């Protein structure tokens, strides 16, 4: 058996030290959005646990072998499927305006629709940047995510804190964006921030979530997400990346699973976690 020994990543103490600072120092602070902190720690912890339990290196690996396959990794890649997926997305995006045009009657609807048209630039720029970011950082590869989630990799040198570092390196870019949003800025005085998104005409506001409730819903949802993430190493962004790149497993297995799961999740949320209505 050949063991893959990665680089000097953990032989060199300085990156390890910085990793500890970034990783634990961040999660150790309870600051503004506790809800997001709890959510992230929940799903990261659960996915690490799942990866640990399903790892082929464990002594009970034969029990979990139904979750693994010996065929080539990443399924089969098909450039044709990639082209078809892309074509489907582009066609949908192009015919969408034509399909909805006839339903606009009132002036208010027309103004709202115009605002939606203005969202096109931001959406397309953001989509392209996200894809590029996933591609270049290698986060689209399930093995990279696995190397981050599999803590037992620390003992034989394959642990890869890249995911944490990549998220950390998105700090400044994302933070710069928040400096322009009214109420969330740290360095810009309020009169210099935007109270309305830059591309939209007046009246629209930023949809930054302000909920700070930590409840069973949040924990359950994120725990489920963590298990799913630990099983495949794919979350929605990389999944669409894989689908667009032509990975047949992603298109025909993960996507339907996600669709069914989303539907079931919404139904569960409505029935189990419905807000309690006070009756007189």
């Amino acid at each position, binding site marked *: 058996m050949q063991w893959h020994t990665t680089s000097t990543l953990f032989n060199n103490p300085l990156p390890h030290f*910085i990793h500890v600072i970034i990783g634990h120092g961040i999660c150790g602070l309870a600051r503004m959005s506790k809800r997001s902190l709890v959510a*992230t720690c929940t799903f990261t912890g659960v996915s690490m646990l799942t990866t640990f339990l399903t790892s082929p290196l464990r002594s009970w690996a034969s029990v979990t072998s139904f979750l693994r396959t010996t065929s080539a990794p990443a399924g089969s890649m098909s450039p044709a499927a990639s082209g078809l997926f892309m074509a489907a997305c582009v066609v949908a995006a192009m015919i969408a305006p034509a399909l*909805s045009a006839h339903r606009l009657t009132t002036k208010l609807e027309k103004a709202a629709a115009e605002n939606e048209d203005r969202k096109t630039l931001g959406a397309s720029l953001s989509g392209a940047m996200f894809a590029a970011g996933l591609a270049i950082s290698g986060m689209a590869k399930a093995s990279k995510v696995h190397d981050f989630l599999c803590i037992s990799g620390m003992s034989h040198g394959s642990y890869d804190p890249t995911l944490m570092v990549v998220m950390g390196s998105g700090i400044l870019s994302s933070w710069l964006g928040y400096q322009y949003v009214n109420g969330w800025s740290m360095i*810009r005085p309020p009169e210099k921030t935007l109270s309305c998104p830059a591309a939209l005409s007046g009246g629209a506001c930023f949809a930054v979530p302000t909920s700070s409730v930590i409840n069973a819903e949040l924990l359950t949802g994120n725990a489920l997400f963590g298990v799913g993430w630990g099983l495949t190493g794919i979350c929605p962004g990389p999944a669409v990346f894989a689908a667009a790149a032509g990975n047949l497993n992603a298109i025909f297995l993960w996507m339907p699973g*996600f669709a069914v799961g989303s539907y079931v999740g919404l139904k569960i949320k409505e029935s189990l976690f419905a807000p309690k209505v006070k009756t007189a």
Partner: protein
Amino acid sequence: MILLTFCIVFETSASEKLTPDPHLSSLCYDSQTGGSASVLLVLNGTIMGASGILSNTILNPFEQLKDPTNRWRYTYWASFAMTVNLFVNYLAPPSFMADNRSLDVDVPVSSTLAYLLGGFLVGAGTRIGNGCTTGTCLYIFVFFCVYVIWLSLQQMCRRVSSMDFVGKVDSPLSNLIIFTIFFFLCNGILLLLYSTIHFPTLSM
């Protein structure tokens, strides 16, 4: 706006180095995902959550097609898919996209059942838990990491002078100075990592 443009341009040019280097070095300069969240926020006013955008598109495709308020999601995925297609099939060398690490014994390759289960759980989890990781994680790191750095910087400045640092930030020049400081501070840590990996003799 100038700062944002500068940031986007810098990130785009810095990510030109498409090396198949699996180390942190080539990843240090990638802030594209952060940039994309930031763009979506500042231009459109929405938090970037891939699961929300995806599940809304998948669950009710035909209703969403007719509804003008969700049109931008189709545009988002269309541009995403086009970029991926362009990158994977034309721009990137095959060695860059090859997932050789998955061939190793200790990395599990998911079976059909795992893909189905994984997709199901991720879908259910994101709908119950109100959202996905993309926006959430960056949202956290935005505030926590930078808040810490900002606090310590503020403390340092308070000790140096008794003037309130925050109150002085009201001119383009001081904005630029602060931007430069933070930019090189954040990327400086990563540069340090890069150099310690590639020049190990220097770190000791």
